[in-house]
């Protein structure tokens, strides 16, 4: 117990070796059950193939037949320092929505690039998505070094290309760039004998330096209301503390109504001594005064408050074949708030792979494009700086029955 946990996603262009790297990480850390190795061996035999590490993650019949990852998957492995959750994300353009699903859950990322093929379309798109999601703990690995004779100059070339692209999209330099061979195991868990010229860390060493999710308990309170329960005589307001803490006796502000409230009690089942809930906790509180509180409202610090607005500017990644059209009405979901919203303006339409502005003041945003958009909600919503309270700085757009876009709010320019 007490071991740290970290969730990271592996992304990159199709066939650059994501699933193989995962298989290698499992194998080298001794985290692959014997039965699993046997199962994979058996399946490889029956398909007439050599042992493929990729099959550890690619579980769907179609994935194994076609040798590609279709959907995102999560598995677990440990080092001495930590327990890791690996999120495998598909590289195919067609499955970008599954990649985003996976990446949105991660605290860190490995971006994998094939040393032979170099930076490709999905390498760039994935790099952009990582940046947009605010992931800044990133390892770039240049894979398949065995295929280029472990050549240092090729490593430098590809490193330069990826750095240039990251620079172009305004992303930070990657935390590490590591030359590896996932297939042969070079620089994954063990230092490579074949690349003595490389003095940096292995992937495992690099991962162990990353920090798990920031604790935001010392920031100003943000608790979006999830629901209100009547339990016996109590009216319990439930939700998760997304920043700060909430304690018995605290004076808080209810947004958007700007009503004041005093916390009479913090409620936990079978724990009458509960007095305080910290950041990240799903909790419940009872207020002293009877205040109107409903889902979507936010309990906040009285001085340091989020913004109440009905106009937001945002970067929006669109992932539906049905384009988003200027002037249409869709649903916006931010924390526990859900509101109808009109697409007032699509200021820019951007290619998510080349990062080129395709059009200004566009009439629609198409699948896999990024837009700088202005949205008008039909009621006031509560938003915050993404870097301060991510949960209130990001949102999804639903069109029809499903999520079709993911957005990050751009602060300071609304209204």
């Amino acid at each position, binding site marked *: 117990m007490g071991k740290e*946990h970290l969730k990271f996603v592996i992304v990159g262009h199709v066939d650059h070796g994501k699933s193989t790297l995962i298989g290698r990480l499992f194998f080298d850390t001794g985290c692959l*059950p014997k*039965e699993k190795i046997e199962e994979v061996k058996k399946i490889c035999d029956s398909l007439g193939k050599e042992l493929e590490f990729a099959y550890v993650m690619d579980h769907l019949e179609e994935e194994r037949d076609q040798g590609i990852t279709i959907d995102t998957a999560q*598995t677990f492995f440990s080092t001495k320092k930590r327990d890791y959750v690996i999120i495998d994300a598909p590289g195919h353009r067609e499955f970008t929505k599954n990649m985003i*699903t996976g990446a949105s859950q991660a605290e860190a990322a490995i971006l994998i690039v094939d040393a032979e093929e170099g930076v490709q379309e999905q390498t760039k798109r994935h790099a952009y998505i990582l940046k947009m999601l605010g992931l800044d703990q990133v390892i770039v690995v240049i894979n398949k070094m065995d295929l280029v004779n472990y050549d240092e100059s090729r490593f430098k070339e590809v490193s330069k290309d990826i750095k240039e692209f990251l620079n172009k999209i305004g992303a930070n330099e990657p935390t590490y760039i590591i030359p590896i061979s996932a297939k042969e195991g070079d620089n994954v868990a063990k230092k490579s004998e074949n690349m003595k010229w490389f003095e940096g860390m292995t992937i495992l060493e690099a991962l162990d330096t990353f920090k798990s999710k920031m604790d935001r308990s010392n920031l100003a309170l943000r608790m979006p209301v*999830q629901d209100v329960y009547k339990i016996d005589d109590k009216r319990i307001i439930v939700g998760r503390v997304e920043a700060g803490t909430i304690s018995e006796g605290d004076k808080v502000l209810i947004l958007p109504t700007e009503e004041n409230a005093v916390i009479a009690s913090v409620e936990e089942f079978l724990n009458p001594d509960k007095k305080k809930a910290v950041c990240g*906790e*799903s909790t419940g509180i009872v207020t002293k005064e009877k205040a109107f509180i409903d889902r979507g409202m936010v309990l906040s610090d009285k001085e340091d408050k989020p913004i109440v607005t009905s106009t937001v500017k945002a970067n929006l990644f669109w992932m539906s074949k049905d384009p988003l059209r200027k002037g249409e009405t869709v649903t916006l979901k931010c924390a526990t708030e859900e509101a109808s919203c009109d697409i007032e303006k699509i200021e820019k339409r951007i290619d998510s792979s080349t990062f080129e502005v395709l059009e200004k003041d566009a009439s629609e945003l198409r699948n896999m494009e990024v837009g700088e958009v202005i949205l008008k909600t039909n009621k006031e919503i509560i938003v915050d700086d993404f870097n301060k309270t991510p949960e209130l700085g990001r949102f999804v757009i639903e069109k029809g*029955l499903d999520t079709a876009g993911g957005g990050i709010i751009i602060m300071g320019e609304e209204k």
Partner: protein
Amino acid sequence: MDHLDELESKSIYIIREAYKQFKNIAVLWSIGKDSTTLMWLVRKAFYGKVPFPALHIDTSFKFKEIYEFRDKWAKEWGFNLVIGRNEEALKRGVNCKTSGALQCCGQLKTEALKQAIAKHGFKALLLGIRRDEHGIRAKERVFSPRNKEFQWNYKDQPPELWDQYKNKQEGEQHIRVHPMLHWTELDIWRYIKRENIPVVSLYFAKNGKRYRSIGCEPCCHPIDSNADDIDKIIEELKTTKVAERSGRSQDKEAAYMMQKLRSLGYM
């Protein structure tokens, strides 16, 4: 918050979302350690006053210990227990020995569940499955739609970003909600120990054997083990290289058996 607090908090958040969004829901209780832990989390989420039923899909082939445990704790915890059985198939004599596992699981579990959903009109079901159990389950979403034929369209799942879950459904679609996808088997046991959650006695070793995963008696096989308390089980799991569901026949009869079962609505 420590790791178990974080897991618990995320699960409670998901459970509360499911109820808020769909109201007419049920928690699927197989009486195993995972779904019993889920029952515990559901009680915490609603301060002991759970506003929806617990659904047990009964094949009639469960261990007797499972039935005893179910009746005792459903009563103790004040759950509205709903039992779903495919009586018609049972009358026909469907069983795994003569009908085969695909038939038997399909009729007595999947079909029984379909009948229960139709009868009670559930819009969503809470299930205690975990990503580390089986490769195919690692691909699941937290809120996962099933179409009216009950199929899981694993080739084209809707995106699921952050904690924003699917809450709109069409026609006879129902949503499988998985509040414990992010837990591992080891997490479950550590949490059971910390919270002192009761579990069926079959998990603890007797005469050098214990069950690591429980279900129908004919299809579950015990493992060699001397772990007769939770601490010993935790120690055993830390070092084992054997997969959790290795004692479950339906997982391995043929490659992709689980995928086939699941795409047809199996849990």
